[in-house]
């Protein structure tokens, strides 16, 4: 275990587990926001990522993202986890294996995020195939650009915990996916409402909890960047929540629960790229500021034909973009030890951040659209209108989230001499 620090390793083991929890938490959050007949399907899209994306990451994705390779994409040296062992990963004090596992959890939750754009109509198997390709050709590439020795990193772009690959990557991919897959059949004609706000709140709360590992672990140590990021992850979303309450109150006189759940996500997303680079004071300002573009876009989007169902673009794409740009203005060397922003005399940093905002979303949008078109050539992307009406739980999974069991007749595996009869719950 050459170059490994036990304290850092202990924290990163915990942080990895924390980030993994974010994926089922996201599933719960999303499941609450859809209609009851699509609860399981929506949750299963996140669970699907836990399976197929992890496999793809271990076999190929990690190497494409974090092997040196060229400026655009990593090489194949670490494919099949070749040469990923107990010695410290270059530039860190934690084992290379643990570094790989920690980064895997990011890729998993990011792929799951994209499902928010296509829930309630996309076929499950098509989504699984899409996620595998997406994790390799969109996530791994963007992660390479900012963290794996890619060209944005070389250019000086700062991204602490994933404003480019995770937040803008998922947000603008969701934008493309909503366009290619198309709107739900009843979108814009009938009210399609969340069926369980409690799921949404609990999911958002668990996401916030996991986010302490997401941002707090992105310093790969127990040192000051991690402590700063951890604390900022508490402060920024609290400010977003508060501002959201105020906008809600001014607009409608009531603070909404679904709004609060959304605000938690927006705040966590906003601070993600900047968590280890800005002071706690500026983190609070960022949290407050991040609420505004996302809130406005969430109001505007449902008036369009764009059925980006769970507003991944608003909550992740725009809030991530806000955070990335914020670094360019308010980064402080005394806090991060790396670079100042425009406000502290380093205008060049803003240029590096603008560069990331210009290319990251464009790449995610274009490649996602292309991948979905490609998958669509091989298999249908959408369920039929009839299936969409019945609900994706029964059609895609043969199960119901809220099965009563009434009228169910047991199908015996072989003739056991028992005549099955329907049952009714007392």
């Amino acid at each position: 275990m050459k170059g490994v620090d036990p304290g850092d390793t202990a924290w990163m083991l915990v942080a990895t587990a924390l980030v993994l929890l974010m994926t089922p938490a996201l599933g719960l959050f999303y499941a609450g926001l859809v209609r009851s007949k699509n609860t399981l399907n929506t949750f299963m899209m996140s669970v699907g990522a836990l399976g197929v994306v992890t496999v793809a990451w271990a076999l190929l994705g990690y190497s494409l993202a974090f092997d040196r390779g060229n400026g655009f994409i990593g090489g194949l040296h670490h494919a099949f986890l070749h040469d990923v062992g107990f010695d410290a990963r270059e530039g860190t004090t934690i084992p290379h294996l643990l570094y790989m596992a920690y980064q895997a959890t990011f890729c998993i939750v990011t792929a799951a995020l994209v499902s928010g754009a296509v829930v309630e109509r996309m076929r499950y198997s098509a989504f699984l195939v899409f996620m595998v390709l997406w994790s390799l050709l969109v996530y791994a590439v963007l992660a390479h650009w900012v963290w794996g020795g890619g060209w944005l990193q070389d250019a000086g772009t700062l991204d602490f915990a994933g404003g480019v690959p995770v937040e803008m990557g998922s947000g603008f991919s969701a934008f493309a996916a909503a366009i290619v897959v198309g709107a739900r059949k009843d979108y814009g004609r009938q009210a399609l409402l969340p069926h369980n706000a409690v799921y949404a709140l609990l999911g958002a709360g668990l996401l916030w909890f996991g986010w302490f590992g997401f941002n707090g672990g992105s310093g790969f140590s127990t040192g000051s960047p991690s402590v700063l990021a951890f604390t900022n992850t508490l402060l920024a979303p609290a400010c977003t929540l508060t501002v959201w309450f105020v906008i809600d109150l001014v607009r409608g006189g009531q603070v909404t629960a679904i709004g609060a759940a959304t605000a938690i996500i927006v705040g966590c997303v906003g601070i993600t790229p900047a968590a280890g680079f800005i002071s706690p004071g500026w983190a609070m300002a960022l949290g407050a500021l991040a609420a505004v573009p996302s809130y406005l876009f969430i109001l505007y989007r449902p008036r369009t034909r764009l059925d980006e169902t769970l507003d991944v673009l608003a909550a992740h794409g725009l809030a991530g973009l806000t955070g990335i740009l914020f670094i360019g203005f308010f980064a402080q060397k005394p806090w991060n030890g790396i670079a100042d922003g425009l406000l502290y005399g380093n205008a060049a940093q803003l240029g590096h951040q603008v560069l990331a905002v210009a290319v990251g979303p464009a790449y995610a949008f274009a490649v996602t659209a292309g991948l979905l078109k490609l998958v669509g050539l091989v298999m249908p992307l959408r369920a039929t209108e009839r299936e969409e009406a019945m609900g994706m739980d029964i059609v895609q999974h043969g199960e119901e989230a809220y099965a009563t069991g009434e009228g169910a007749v047991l199908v015996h595996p072989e003739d056991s001499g028992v005549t099955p009869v329907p049952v009714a719950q007392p």
Partner: protein
Amino acid sequence: MGAERRSLVTLPLGDCTLKLIIAIVRPEKANDVLESLYRAEVRGVSMSRVQGHGGELERVETYRGTTVKMELAKKVRLEIAVSDEFVDRTIEALETGARTGEVGDGKIFVVGLERAIRIRTGEGDRAAVTPVDP
């Protein structure tokens, strides 16, 4: 108040001017039905979720090792009290909204209604089933 209370004793049985329309439809078509009723200007609907069996194919579900056939399918039951001249357009709207052409689309029953009273005002019969602006 001041609403005139009609004596219902004078109304001979079998000469009902009111009908109760009961429709059993697919839950996935419930929104379409509500929409077509709305377009036909039929207001005043009660809706309940029921389970029934109308000869459609059974659905098979599996929960871990347990495989079951769902003999009872979820249905939505609508009850609409209307005056006679509204019966046809209500039936038409129900058919438009609920029909898919597959077995299991449901049924519409029309039954005579002896009396109807609006609780708030005490109005009877036709007035009771004619919506007012709130």
